[in-house]
């Protein structure tokens, strides 16, 4: 039995977990659900020994858990299988299972036979068909996951935490995984199963805990709750966050996409964006929204489909330069890796996409550049002490404004904003919404991708719901509410 007792954890500026208490019974599969940012990952990182600095206590069989590292957690019988697998692709299955604790025989030599024999034993228990001698890199992702599970079994694991284990599995592989989970349970292992796919949670779990905004909402037996209840608990907050009023008028068709496909990422995506519109794309992590945005923008090349901008058919973009020149720009969800050049100044960053245009005979027209930059700093209220300040030293909100400035300069018609408010404070968020409002009032169209349901609902004129690489539903602003959107996104409506 695991008892989580008044556990809190804060990061600078955010309370990730706020006084959480609940109990996980032994030899059960316990589901942990919640929206993005609800605190699921923080909690499992605490239990698995990654975060050691938190308030409150965790008891395992009435013994207070004291661990300082993942390694110590493993020694206490707690193993975690993260979304990003940690197998070594170049080694064999057996070598992976025994990595770091290889059995040694005569004169310290590796006892390969023993390693393979024990591995085979574990693989047999799990009823899987690959051999301990196979190279892990040659296995499917599903089987690599089994290798990690086997590793946990060899460690004498009592508690196994699985973080979104099905995110990259096919339907059939999910079934296999579930039968492995059943086997584990019958061996007396307690499983904490973290997912936002309600369908799976209700299929495999015995009890379900819901977290929301870092708070514990409810823990109940599966039999005592229903998917609609859980959805309500996941999203159940009022839209009390402040959003600026939408005033823009819907105008001409700016962007129309038909049957856009990129194999393995998304397929047959069709949608439209009009002038003056903010079109929200809701979806859970892994639903293919960012992949779609990148392919639209030419950062990756789409396989087929049709894109029209202002009713003109475009060649599918295959380099961002082509998209930018046709008036389509993209704000990445990762501003540090994909938006800014951190070592360069605010000025150099802002004018980067147009630096060629503001040059004459190779030379950048400095006066013009300074004027452009100064006017944007004023317009977006970017807080800097000089236009030559290095962007690395700016706050998140101001960095984001620098990236938005870059896009504004390109004279684009359609803006794709991918998680534009991620990691910035509430005040700056409001300013970003206002910038989006102003853009649409100016006759631009915005594709707005966000994992935060309140802001999608609060600012979009229309909402497309994406799930597993497809658009599964379209809502108008009036039709959409947290419950029906979340239920579409989690697949809860199809249960």
């Amino acid at each position, binding site marked *: 039995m695991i008892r989580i007792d008044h556990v809190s954890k804060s990061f600078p500026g955010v309370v990730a977990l706020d006084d959480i208490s609940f109990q996980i019974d032994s030899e059960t599969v316990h589901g942990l659900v919640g929206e993005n940012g609800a605190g699921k990952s923080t909690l499992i990182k605490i239990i698995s020994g990654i975060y050691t600095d938190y308030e409150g206590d965790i008891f395992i069989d009435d013994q207070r858990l004291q661990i300082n590292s993942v390694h110590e957690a493993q020694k206490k019988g707690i193993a975690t299988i993260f979304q990003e697998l940690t197998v070594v692709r170049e080694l064999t299955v057996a070598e992976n299972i025994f990595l770091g604790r290889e059995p040694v025989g005569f004169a310290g030599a590796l006892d390969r036979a023993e390693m393979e024999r024990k591995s085979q034993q574990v693989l047999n228990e799990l009823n899987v068909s690959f051999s301990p001698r196979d190279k892990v890199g040659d296995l499917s992702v599903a089987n690599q996951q089994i290798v990690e599970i086997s590793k946990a079994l060899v460690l004498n694991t009592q508690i196994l935490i699985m973080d979104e284990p099905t995110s990259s599995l096919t339907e059939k592989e999910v079934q296999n995984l579930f039968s492995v989970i059943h086997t584990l349970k019958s061996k007396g292992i307690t499983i904490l199963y973290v997912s936002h796919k309600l369908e799976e949670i209700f299929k495999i779990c015995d009890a379900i805990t819901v977290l929301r905004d870092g708070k514990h909402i409810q823990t109940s037996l599966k039999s005592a709750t229903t998917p609609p209840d859980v959805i309500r608990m996941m999203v159940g907050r009022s839209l009390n966050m402040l959003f600026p009023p939408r005033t823009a008028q819907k105008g001409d068709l700016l962007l129309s996409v038909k049957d856009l496909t990129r194999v393995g990422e998304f397929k047959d995506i069709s949608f439209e964006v009009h002038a003056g519109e903010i079109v929200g794309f809701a979806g859970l992590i892994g639903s293919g929204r960012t992949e779609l945005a990148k392919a639209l923008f030419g950062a990756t090349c789409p396989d087929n489909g049709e894109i029209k901008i202002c009713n003109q058919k475009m060649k599918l973009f295959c380099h*961002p330069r082509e998209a930018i020149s046709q008036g389509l720009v993209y704000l990445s969800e990762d501003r540090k*890796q994909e938006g800014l050049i951190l070592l360069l100044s605010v000025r150099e960053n802002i004018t980067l996409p147009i630096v*060629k245009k503001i040059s004459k005979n190779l030379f950048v027209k*400095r006066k013009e550049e300074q004027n452009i930059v100064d006017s944007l700093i004023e317009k977006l209220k970017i807080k800097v002490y000089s236009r030559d300040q290095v962007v690395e030293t700016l706050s998140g909100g101001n960095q984001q404004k620098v990236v938005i400035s870059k896009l504004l300069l390109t004279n684009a018609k359609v803006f794709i904003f991918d998680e534009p408010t991620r990691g910035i404070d509430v005040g700056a968020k409001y300013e970003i919404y206002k910038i989006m409002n102003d853009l649409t009032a100016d006759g631009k169209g915005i594709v707005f991708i966000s994992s935060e349901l309140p802001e999608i609902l609060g600012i979009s004129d229309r909402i497309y719901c994406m799930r597993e690489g497809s658009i599964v539903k379209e809502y108008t602003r009036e039709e959409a509410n947290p419950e029906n959107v979340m239920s579409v996104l989690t697949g809860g409506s199809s249960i």
Partner: protein
Amino acid sequence: MKPGSEQFRSILILILVNVGIILVLSFLSPTFLTYENLLSVLKRMSELGMLAIAETIVFISGGFDLSIGTIMAISGLIAGQMYILGLPFFLCILLALLGGMAAGLMNALFIVKLRLQPFIVTLATMSILRSIVYGVLRGKTLSHFPESYLASGDLTILGLPFLFIVLVIFALLATLFLQRTYVGRQIYAVGGNERSAYLSGISVNRIKYTVYILSGFICACAGLLFSIRIRAVIPDAGLNSPLEVVTAVVIGGTAITGGKGTIAGSLLGVLALFLLTNGFSLLNLNPFWQLVVLGLLLIYVVGREGISKALVGKRLKKKTHQSAAIK
């Protein structure tokens, strides 16, 4: 470069370092602070300074070029060999420059098309071209050049050697190119964050071609300067250049990871190196120690940031622990 900026400060420090070396050496050796000696230092640093300019541009773009010294050797070889074959001399020079650019193009092709590491590609180019130089020269030296060409090495203008003036002109042009043109800006951007630059619509590949071809061109010019200075083409030209140049460029504040650096810094780095070398020989110290000092200097300069970061990091960690404890 703005007064008060980090770059400005590092240039100032470099100037002080050079002044410091000059002061110390002028005390230790009576011949150091003579016009003849300083003239020879400036003259000798010209071709290595050129290579440093090339390497600085490549570093800023986030690349690496080990083939600089070899391209220098092969351009001199092309000029000399073509002249022996009886081509008009201006054509020989043209071919030498084209040869250097072709070598740069070859580097860029492998780096862009096959997505290979610049370090590995240019290491291969270095050894291939060096073998060609050895194969053609077979231990001989070429010294058949027009007299007026060789005589330019003895020219001084306003008391400064002609070769050094060529270096200064190249440095000024390269600085203008990097700081004031949009291509220069894009080179910094690609080196600073290739992904962001690409998503900003910059043709990253075109920038890489530009950088390596430009590097090849500047190294070829260095090769010509070298042949003027020593009045010949020798097989081992530029053999030690990669170590010397990388040391100088890094001392000069250019980031090995790209996105940061100045030509002025690199040249001050080269100057410091040459003053040290000169000092070693004036003081009759074993030249073997020069390479040792060079290696240590490189480790210190590259490690400097990491060392200070590690120290600061430890302190910060301590602080947060303390504040947590207070809480």
